[in-house]
């Protein structure tokens, strides 16, 4: 089979994932709802995953795709913990806006 990268250059993939990554970053920076912040982080990770796949095709080497699985699994675990923390916060605070988390400072 011929390499898909012959039609669309690797650069485009890189740009795409960088853009995605930045979107994720901006999401994290600008949104105040914890859930949405999580999702933005997920976007970042997925952008990276996309890039992994692209590179692995580019290098004709499966390691990259394997790595994607790692990162997905890790991301899942992370989010699980994160949500757990979020739940307990919601129990104590009744809100999930990260703006309320300003008691520790100075």
């Amino acid at each position, binding site marked *: 089979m011929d390499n898909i990268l012959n039609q669309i250059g690797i650069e485009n993939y*890189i740009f795409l994932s960088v853009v995605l*990554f930045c979107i*994720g970053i901006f999401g*994290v920076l600008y949104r105040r709802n*914890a859930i949405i*912040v999580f999702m933005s*982080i997920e976007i*970042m*990770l997925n*952008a*990276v995953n996309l*890039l*992994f796949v692209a*590179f*692995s095709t*580019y*290098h004709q*080497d499966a*390691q*990259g795709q*394997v*790595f994607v699985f*790692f*990162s997905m699994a*890790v991301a899942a*675990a*992370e989010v699980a*913990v*994160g949500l*757990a*923390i*979020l739940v*307990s*916060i919601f*129990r*104590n*605070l009744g809100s999930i806006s*990260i703006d309320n*988390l300003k*008691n*520790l*400072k100075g």
Partner: protein
Amino acid sequence: MNTLIAITGLGIFCLLFEILNFRKGIIPFTILGLLGVLALNFCEFGSTESYYNNMITVSKFSTSFSSLFIILTIFLVALSHNFYENHPTKISDFVAIKIFLLAGGVAMVSFGNLAMFFLGIEILSIALYVLAASERLNLKSNEAGMKYFLMGSFASGIILFGICLIYGAMGSFDVVEISEYSLSAELPIWFPIGMVLVTIGMLFKIAAVPFHFWAPDVYQGSPALTTALMSTLAKVVAIATLFKLISGLNFIPSLENQDHLHTFENIIVFISIASMTVGNIMALRQVNVKRMLAFSGISHAGFMLMTFLTVATSAGVLLYYTAAYALAGIAAFSVILYVCKNQDDEDIANFHGLGKTNPLLAAILTASLLSMAGIPIFSGFFAKLFLFNQTIQTGHIALVIVAVINSIISVGYYFKLILAMYSKEPNQERTGKPFLIYAVAIISIALNVALGLFPSLVLDLLN
């Protein structure tokens, strides 16, 4: 490798003990187990082999650092007995988590493949998230956990992206291969950028300026024991890993080939100066001891970063510095744990008159603070000495002078605590002399002083 397996096994055993309803035994068993692991690890010392086609490579560097981690964990586990007295159901979980965290740490210093590196980080971090937020009903703890989690996972994202770029540049995750390619003349720009991104991620973990903001809040919010763990074990793991990463991937030589070395060095110098200064100055006005130590930790991160200017030779110095710092930290935190057991915060006021009520603990805390401040004969002094020595060799005298000025500033807040202990009247009577805490405090400070008297022991391990 066996170390790693053994540690993981130990963790699982802890969980089993809970199921088998054998709580009493957990702590002693774990400590014994860890001692065993330590012995095992010593056996591996010197051998350099790699497992699972280079997923894990055991080297002097990894073994010596893992031994340090294991020792620290032993202390932490020992402390957790007294810490979780009041809610015994948690013991097994948290001990187990600590063990897994240790596993993550060991994985991080002995990775042979970026995948392993990433997994290690994540194991460590996730464990830390849990521990930070472990006091469910305490809002502070929750907030700490949340902050740490959000920023941590953000940092992980950065690291992942970095790894990805490295992969893109090199077409491999294997450290050996990458290090070979990295010496080739032509390198895609992605490689350095990827490396920088990974470095930034790690700098976040070791809480270097400007990625340090999480540290004070998280340290203050999380349970004292967790803070102890973060400020000693986690920090040491992170810095060691970063060191291994930069040296292992021949990053420096590759930069030299592209003659961008000075760029990198400037960044390191800047960050280390910024970390020391910000850390020390911010610490001056803190009233919460944990928070104060957080800032002092930031400044120490700045000191440790100085080793990155001489990656080729300074592994030993880094090991020595981290050991000295971590041991002092353990000693200090064991006293803090004792003093602030039933206090709702770790305000300095809690330490008033400790010199009268518990002269021994006061002396130990004083010693550990002196060690952090870099007063002879404690190992902290020699750590700084060797560090400065290294740095002056590379001609960064200005950096050293800044470091010196910073050590002067640091004395300011370390002595605030000492003053509180000795020159104020006790405001509460402190009962009970928990054996484990005393033991940990004494042993760790003794080790610290021993390191000071015989620095060569550690220093020459990696030379």
